[in-house]
C-alpha cells in the first residue's frame, strides 16, 4: 500500500521493530509488533486506552524492557539489557510526555538542564549555557513566546509550559526520533499551527516523528501515515489520505461501530422544571437549565468549562456559595480523571459505588453492608458492569470498568443534576457507547445532565451546548444548529473575535516580576527586614549589642540553629520534614564532647557512622514509600536514646582544636559571624549547583526527574547526607560554644529549624527553598529569645512566642496565597 512512495527510505529506517512483545501477568500489553518508521516520516499512532500505546512508547524510550522482539535504531540493533532512558536520549530518541513533566519550582533553563545534563562545562558557566539553549530552542519553534528562561515554570501559563516541554525535546540536535504524546492539548490554534510547521520542518530535515493523539482529525492533518493499535497488536497501517475517520474508529474498536455523526440529538425535548441557573460571571445573560436536558460545555480546552462544572458542584453540595450559580437540586459528579479525582484505591467495587449515597447523607447513619450491596446491584447492572468483577478491588478493573463504577456512584446518589467531567476520556469505543446510552437514559429519567467533554464530537449527543471562552459561556448552540463543524468553527470564531494575540496575553503577565519593588520581591525581603528590625531593637535596648563583641555573643547562640535550619532546608526542598534533625545535632554534640576528646580516631569514626545511619533514612523513606515525618520522629528517639545511653547526664568537654576555633577571629570578624557566613555560602552554592537543581527537581516533580534518568534513591541519600552534615556541624559548634554536651540540647532546634525554613521563604511542599532567607529566619528566631530576655519576659514564654510566630507567618503566607 505504501511501498511505492516510501520504499527508498525504508531501506534505512530510523526505527525498526520486529516481533516486540510485552506482558504484565496475563495482560498482553504488546503482542508481536513489527513496523518501521523512515527518516523524515510523520506517523500518527492511535488506539483506545489499553491498546498498548503507552507500553510501546515506554519500550521505545528505554523505560520498559520488552519480553521478546528486536529493536533497531538507525540500522543498529539495540541490546535491551543496556537500554535505558539515558541511552535512548544519547541515540536521539526524545519523547514529549502527555502529562507535563516540568518541575514547577525550577526555572525554564534549569528544566532544560535536568533533562539534558552534561553540557556547559565544569564551571558556574553551565547556567548561562542552558539559558541560551532554552531561549534559542523556544524561539526556534514558537516565536514571540514571551517566556523568560530565568523565571520559574510555576509563573508560566499552561500553554507556555507545553511549549517549553515541546521545545526541550524538539530542538535536540541529535534528534532522530521524536515522539509526541498528545502535544497540542492546551495549545491554541496559532501555536498548534507553529507546532505542525515545526514537526514538518524537522521531518523534512530527516527526523522521524511519532504523533499520538485521541483527536483523529488532528492525526489525519499532521501525519501522512497512521498506525492503529488494538489489544496490543497493530490493527491497521496505512496512509491517512486513504483512510477516513470512521475507518480509524472501526479499526480501534475492532468492529464496525455506528458512525457517531449519525446519532442524532433528540430534538424537541419537553423542558422540565428549572434545576440550575447561571448568570454573570459565568454567562452573558441569565441562563436556565432544565430537568431532562443534556447540556454540553464546549469551547477550546481550558476556557472555563471545568471551573463552571466545579462551581455547580459546590453550589449543589451547599458547602460554598458560588457567585452567579443557583442550584435547585442535589448534584452528583462523575470525574474523568479517575486516578486523582475518582477512585478510592483501597476499596472494592461495592464500597466505591455506595459511597455516593453515604458521603452526602447524615454523618451518623448506621450502615448495613449487605443491604448496601444489594441496593447497589441495580445501579451496577445499569452501568453494565460484569457481575463477576463486582467483588474485585477497584484497581484491578480496567479503566473503562472503573469509569462505569464512578458512574454507578453518581447514579446511586439519586441526585437531580448529573455533572460529567469528561467521563469518556481514555476509555474504549464500546464503553463510550454504553456511556452515551446511560446519559440519554438519565436525561429521559428527568435528570439535568451537564457534560464537559474534550471530544467535540460528543456534543452531538447534547440538546444544547454552551460555548465557553475565557471563563464565560459566550454563546448557546441549540440542537437544530449542532454539528461538529459548527461547534469547532464557533469555538475558533470566539477565539478570533477576541484580541488576536489573546494567547500571548493570557500568558499571565504576572505583575509580580515586573517592577523592582514588586510583591514577590517584597516578600523575599521580609526575613532580612525582620532580622534587621529585631537586631535594631536589641541595639537600642542595649548599646553593647552593636559592638563586635556584642554581635559575637548574640550570634554564638544562633550558630547551631542556623546550621540545623540549613540542613532542614534541604529536607524541605524534597517536600519532606525531618523531626529528628535537632536530636541528631544533640547526638553529634555528645559524640564530639566525649569520644572525640579522648579517642579522636574512634570519635571521628563514630560521628561518620552516625552520619551514615542518618543518610540511610533517605533511601529507606524513598524505597518503601513511607512518610518521612513518622520515620524521622522514630529516628529522633534513636538518636536521643543513643546519646542518652552514652552520656546519661550532661558533661564532657570540647576537644582543644574545637574550643580554639570558637575564639578565632579573621580581621576582627568573630568566629560566630564567620560560621554563619560560611554556612550560608556553603548552602547557597550547594543549592545553586547542578546537584542542588536536581534535588529541588525531585522535590517538585519526582517522577519527571526520575524519567530523565536521575536516581531517586541516590537523590534522597544525598539529601539526607547534606542535611545530616549540616546538623553534625551544628553539634560540633554546640560543643565548641558550650565546651560540654547535653543530649537534650538539640531537641528544641527541630521545630525552630522548620520555623526558620518557613520564615525564610521556602515552601513546605514543591521544592522551592531560599538559603539566605533561611539564615535570616534562624537569626530572627534566635534573636527573639535574646530580645525577650532584654525586655524582661520570662523564658517560660519562649516556646509559645516561637510557636505563635511560626503560626502567624504561615497564616500570613496562606492569606497571601488566597488573595493571589
Amino acid at each position, binding site marked *: 500500500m505504501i511501498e511505492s512512495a516510501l520504499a527508498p527510505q525504508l531501506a534505512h529506517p530510523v526505527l525498526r521493530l520486529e516481533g516486540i512483545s510485552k506482558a504484565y501477568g496475563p495482560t498482553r500489553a504488546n503482542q508481536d509488533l513489527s513496523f518501521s518508521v523512515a527518516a523524515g516520516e510523520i506517523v500518527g499512532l492511535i488506539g483506545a486506552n489499553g491498546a498498548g500505546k503507552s507500553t510501546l512508547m515506554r519500550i521505545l524510550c528505554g523505560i520498559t524492557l520488552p519480553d521478546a522482539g528486536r529493536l533497531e535504531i538507525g540500522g543498529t540493533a539495540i541490546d535491551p539489557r543496556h537500554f535505558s532512558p539515558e541511552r535512548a536520549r544519547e541515540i536521539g530518541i526524545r519523547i514529549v510526555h502527555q502529562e507535563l513533566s516540568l518541575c514547577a519550582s525550577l526555572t525554564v533553563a534549569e528544566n532544560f538542564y535536568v533533562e539534558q545534563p552534561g553540557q556547559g562545562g565544569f564551571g558556574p558557566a553551565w547556567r548561562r549555557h542552558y539559558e541560551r539553549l532554552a531561549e534559542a530552542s523556544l524561539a526556534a519553534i514558537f516565536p514571540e513566546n514571551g517566556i523568560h528562561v530565568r523565571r520559574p515554570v510555576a509563573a508560566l501559563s499552561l500553554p507556555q509550559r507545553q511549549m517549553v516541554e515541546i521545545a526541550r525535546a524538539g530542538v535536540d540536535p541529535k534528534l532522530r526520533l521524536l515522539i509526541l504524546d498528545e502535544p497540542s492539548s492546551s495549545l491554541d490554534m496559532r501555536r498548534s499551527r507553529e507546532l505542525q510547521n515545526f514537526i514538518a520542518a524537522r521531518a523534512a530535515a530527516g527526523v522521524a516523528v511519532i504523533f499520538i493523539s485521541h483527536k483523529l482529525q488532528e492525526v489525519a492533518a499532521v501525519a501522512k501515515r497512521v498506525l492503529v493499535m488494538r489489544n496490543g497488536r497493530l490493527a491497521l497501517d496505512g496512509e491517512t489520505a486513504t483512510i477516513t475517520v470512521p475507518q480509524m474508529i472501526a479499526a480501534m474498536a475492532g468492529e464496525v461501530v455506528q458512525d457517531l455523526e449519525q446519532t442524532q440529538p433528540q430534538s424537541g425535548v419537553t423542558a422540565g422544571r428549572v434545576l440550575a441557573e447561571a448568570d454573570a460571571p459565568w454567562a452573558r445573560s441569565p441562563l436556565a437549565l432544565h430537568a431532562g436536558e443534556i447540556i454540553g460545555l464546549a469551547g477550546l480546552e481550558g476556557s472555563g468549562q471545568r471551573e463552571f462544572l466545579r462551581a455547580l458542584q459546590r453550589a449543589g453540595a451547599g458547602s460554598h456559595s458560588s457567585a452567579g450559580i443557583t442550584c435547585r437540586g442535589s448534584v452528583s459528579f462523575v470525574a474523568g480523571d479517575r486516578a*486523582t479525582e475518582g477512585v478510592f484505591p483501597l476499596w472494592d467495587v461495592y464500597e466505591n459505588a455506595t459511597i455516593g449515597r453515604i458521603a452526602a447523607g*447524615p454523618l451518623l447513619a448506621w450502615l448495613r453492608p449487605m443491604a448496601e450491596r444489594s441496593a447497589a446491584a441495580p445501579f451496577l447492572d445499569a452501568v453494565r458492569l460484569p457481575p463477576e468483577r463486582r467483588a474485585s478491588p477497584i484497581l484491578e478493573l480496567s479503566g473503562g470498568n472503573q469509569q462505569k463504577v464512578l458512574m454507578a456512584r453518581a447514579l446511586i446518589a439519586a441526585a437531580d443534576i448529573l455533572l460529567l467531567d469528561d467521563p469518556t476520556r481514555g476509555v474504549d469505543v464500546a464503553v463510550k457507547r454504553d456511556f452515551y446510552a446511560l446519559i440519554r437514559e438519565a436525561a429521559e429519567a428527568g435528570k439535568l445532565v451537564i457534560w464537559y467533554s474534550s471530544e467535540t464530537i460528543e456534543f452531538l449527543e447534547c440538546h444544547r451546548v454552551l460555548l465557553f471562552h475565557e471563563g464565560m459561556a459566550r454563546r448557546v448552540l441549540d440542537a437544530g444548529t449542532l454539528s461538529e463543524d459548527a461547534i469547532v468553527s464557533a469555538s475558533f470564531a470566539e477565539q478570533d473575535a477576541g484580541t488576536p494575540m489573546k494567547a500571548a496575553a493570557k500568558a499571565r503577565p504576572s505583575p509580580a516580576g515586573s517592577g523592582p519593588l514588586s510583591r514577590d520581591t517584597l516578600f523575599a525581603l521580609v526575613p532580612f527586614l525582620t532580622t534587621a528590625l529585631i537586631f535594631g531593637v536589641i541595639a537600642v535596648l542595649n548599646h553593647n549589642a552593636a559592638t563586635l563583641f556584642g554581635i559575637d555573643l548574640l550570634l554564638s547562640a544562633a550558630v547551631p540553629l542556623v546550621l540545623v535550619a540549613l540542613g532542614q532546608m534541604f529536607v524541605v526542598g524534597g517536600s519532606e520534614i525531618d523531626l529528628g534533625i535537632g536530636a541528631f545535632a544533640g547526638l553529634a554534640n555528645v559524640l564530639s564532647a566525649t569520644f572525640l576528646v579522648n579517642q579522636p580516631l574512634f570519635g571521628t569514626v563514630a560521628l561518620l557512622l552516625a552520619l551514615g545511619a542518618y543518610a540511610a533514612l533517605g533511601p529507606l523513606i524513598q524505597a518503601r514509600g513511607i512518610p518521612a515525618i*513518622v*520515620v524521622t*520522629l522514630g529516628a529522633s528517639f534513636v538518636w536521643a536514646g543513643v546519646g542518652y545511653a552514652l552520656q546519661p547526664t550532661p558533661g564532657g568537654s570540647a576537644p582543644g582544636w574545637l574550643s580554639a576555633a570558637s575564639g578565632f577571629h579573621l580581621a576582627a570578624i568573630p568566629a560566630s559571624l564567620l560560621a554563619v557566613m560560611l554556612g550560608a555560602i556553603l548552602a547557597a552554592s550547594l543549592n545553586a549547583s547542578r546537584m542542588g537543581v536536581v534535588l529541588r527537581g525531585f522535590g517538585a516533580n519526582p517522577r519527571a526527574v526520575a524519567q530523565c534518568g536521575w536516581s531517586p534513591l541516590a537523590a534522597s541519600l544525598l539529601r539526607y547526607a547534606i542535611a545530616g552534615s549540616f546538623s553534625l556541624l551544628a553539634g560540633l559548634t554546640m560543643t565548641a560554644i558550650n565546651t560540654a554536651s547535653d543530649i537534650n540540647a538539640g531537641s528544641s532546634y527541630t*521545630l525552630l529549624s522548620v520555623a526558620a525554613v518557613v520564615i525564610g521563604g521556602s515552601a513546605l511542599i514543591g521544592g522551592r527553598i531560599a538559603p539566605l532567607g533561611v539564615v535570616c529566619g534562624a537569626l530572627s528566631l534566635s534573636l527573639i529569645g535574646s530580645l525577650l530576655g532584654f525586655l524582661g519576659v520570662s523564658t517560660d514564654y519562649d516556646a509559645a512566642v516561637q510557636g505563635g510566630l511560626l503560626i502567624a507567618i*504561615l497564616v500570613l503566607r496562606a492569606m497571601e496565597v488566597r488573595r493571589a
Partner: protein
Amino acid sequence: MSRPLAWLRAHRWSFSAIGILLLWAMLSLATARFSLSSLSGVASSASFLAVAAIGQMFAVATGGGNVDLSIPSVITLAAFLTMIVSGGSDAGLLAALPLVLSVGLATGAINALLILWLRIPAIIATLAVGYVLDTAALLANRRFTTFAVSPILRALASAHIAGVPMILLLAGALAACSAALIGRTSYGRTLMALGQNEVAASLAGAHAGRIITIAFMLSGALAAIDGALLSAHTGGAFLGMGRPYLLQSVGAVVVGGTLIFGGSATALGTLLGSVLLVLIVTTMQIAGLSGGVQDMVQGVVIITVLAAAGSGVSRRTA
C-alpha cells in the same frame, strides 16, 4: 498467596496480636518475675496509651500523612488542670472535667482550622499548637500545689474489677465504640474515603471540613481525658509527662495496622498495638536496659514496622 496469609493481610491487627503472644510466651518462659501482677501493670499502661493512640488513629486516618503531634502537650496540660481545678475532691472534678474536655476539643478545633482553612501541614500546625500548650503547662506548674486526687477519678484510673483494671475496661469500650464508628457509620466510611482520596470524596458529596475537624477534635478530647486519668493514676502532674506519648501514640497506631497515609484504620489493632509496645518496653525494663536504649529500640521498632508495611512505591497508586 495462601489463604491464611491472605486473611492476615486483610486483618492487619492480627500481626500485633501474634507479636503479643510471642513476646508473652517468651517472657513467661524466660523469667519467673513476669507474673500475673506485672501483666495487670502492662494492661494498665497499655490502656492509658490506647486512649491517646485511638485519638491519634482518627487524626492519621484523615490521610495525607497527617499526624497529631499536640497530643503529649494536651495530656500534660490536662493533667495539670485536673489537679489544680478539682483540688482533689469529687465536687471539684465536676468543674475540672468539662474544662479539661473543652481544652482538648478546642485544641483539636484549632488544629483543624490551621490545617483546613490555612492549609498548614498537619505536623507543623499541631507541633506549633503543642508548643503554645507547653507554655501553658509551664505556667500551670507554677501554681501547682496539691497532690490530692479525686476519689472517683482515682477509681476510674486505678481500681480493679475482679482483678481486671478498670482502665482496661474503659479502653476496651472506647476501642469497641471507635470500631463501630469507623466500620458501621457513614461518618467512619466517609472519613476513610477522605483519607484515601480527598478530592474524590469531596466530589462524591463528603463535607471534608466537618469530617476532618471532628477527627482532630476526637484526638484532642481523648488526649485530654487521658491526661486527666493519668494525673489520677500517677497521683500528680509534672512537666513532660505526656512526652512518651508523642512517639508511642503514633507507634501504636502503625504497629496496630492502621495505614499511615490514611484511609484505613483499625481500633482493635490500635488497642493491640498499644499492648505490644508497652510489652516491649516492659521486656526491656525486665532486661535492665537503660532509658536511652529503651527509646532507641522503640524508634527502631516503629521504623521497621513502617518499612515493612510500606508499599514499596513512593506514594500510593492513587
